[in-house]
């Protein structure tokens, strides 16, 4: 998701990009330093109110462009499925934005987001007890410290098992594991279950991208061997770095350690 938003940021005049869910919550964002998380959350909430009202008049809207004295807000609907999550992609730009280029770029970005989410949503549901969490196909780009961190929230998508992951986990875990984290080799079913629990717990703080964070962290802490519970504390330490708020971080660490 961040890669898609970063692509939009590279368009001349774009100051911030964000993905909002149907309730106005920020699913992801990239922006210049002045457009930090709190600003984007406020704007997201306000824009969503406007969208909800527009839908009273025109429920088949596709794009909304608000032109201001010193810039624009462009919004494009991203409908994954009829019963899927209602997401919108929003771009904040200054007056140097080329509206024609922006329209095309926004359309391309919306298609990419849709493809990404559809790819995940089409997979079978996860193991029993898993909760709706997020976009399994989401990818995370490496951000420099100066960048604003992406803020992700629950999109209501299904926490799903990757078929590839299932086979990998299954083969490595003697076929008894039903948890799924694509591309992560695990030593045993307990390790797979631990990863799933970590992802669920992390999702409370960072949203659906948690699954990707867990995949990456598991590979980092155990690069040469299947992930095992012996590396669980390292994994928790690594994942904690994904949570900005110290309170949330502490809460996650406590909860994850309890689930160890």
């Amino acid at each position, binding site marked *: 998701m961040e890669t898609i938003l970063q692509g939009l940021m590279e368009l001349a005049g774009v*100051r*911030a990009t964000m993905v909002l869910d149907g309730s106005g919550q920020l699913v992801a964002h990239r922006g210049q330093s*002045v*457009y930090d998380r709190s*600003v984007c959350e*406020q*704007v997201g909430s*306000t*824009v969503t*109110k*406007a969208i909800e*009202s*527009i839908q*009273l*008049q*025109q429920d*088949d*809207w*596709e*794009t*909304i*462009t*608000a*032109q*201001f*004295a*010193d*810039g*624009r*807000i462009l919004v494009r609907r991203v409908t994954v499925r009829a019963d899927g999550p209602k997401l919108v992609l929003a771009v*904040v730009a200054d007056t140097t934005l080329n509206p024609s280029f922006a329209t095309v770029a926004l359309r391309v970005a919306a298609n990419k987001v849709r493809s990404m989410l559809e790819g995940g949503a089409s997979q079978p549901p996860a193991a029993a007890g898993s909760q709706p969490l997020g976009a399994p196909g989401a990818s995370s780009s490496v951000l420099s410290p100066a960048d604003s961190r992406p803020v992700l929230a629950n999109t209501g998508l299904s926490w799903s098992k990757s078929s590839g992951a299932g086979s990998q986990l299954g083969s490595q875990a003697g076929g008894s594991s039903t948890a799924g984290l694509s591309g992560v080799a695990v030593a045993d079913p307990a390790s797979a279950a631990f990863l799933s629990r970590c992802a669920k717990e992390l999702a409370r703080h960072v949203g659906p991208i948690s699954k990707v964070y867990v995949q990456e962290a598991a590979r980092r802490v155990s690069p040469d061997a299947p992930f095992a519970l012996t590396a669980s504390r390292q994994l928790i330490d690594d994942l904690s770095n994904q949570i900005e708020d110290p309170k949330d971080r502490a809460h996650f660490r406590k909860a994850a350690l309890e689930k160890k």
Partner: protein
Amino acid sequence: MSDLAIIAKIPDVKSAVLGDLAGGFHDAVREQDGETVAAVMGFVSSAMSSAGEQLGLGALRRIAVAGEARGCLVLVHGNVVITASVEPGKSVGAVEKVLDSTVHGRV
């Protein structure tokens, strides 16, 4: 001729409504439910103005909503909000251009 009448004469503009940022209804051309349109678009304009303030984008000038079958253009000048319903939706851009050349600076 009033701005509302000028806007209503633009090709593909099906109706036009004059309202204000508080959602008040003042006048309409070919729109039977002008009160509702004025109320909704007044609120939408207020909300977008707030978003613009939060982002430091200055005063709201215009909102364009486009769908496949229809769209609308909302012009904001001070407290005045003019909403033009456009059909088909792909004509929104063309109507915007006509507006720029005919009523630019007047509303």
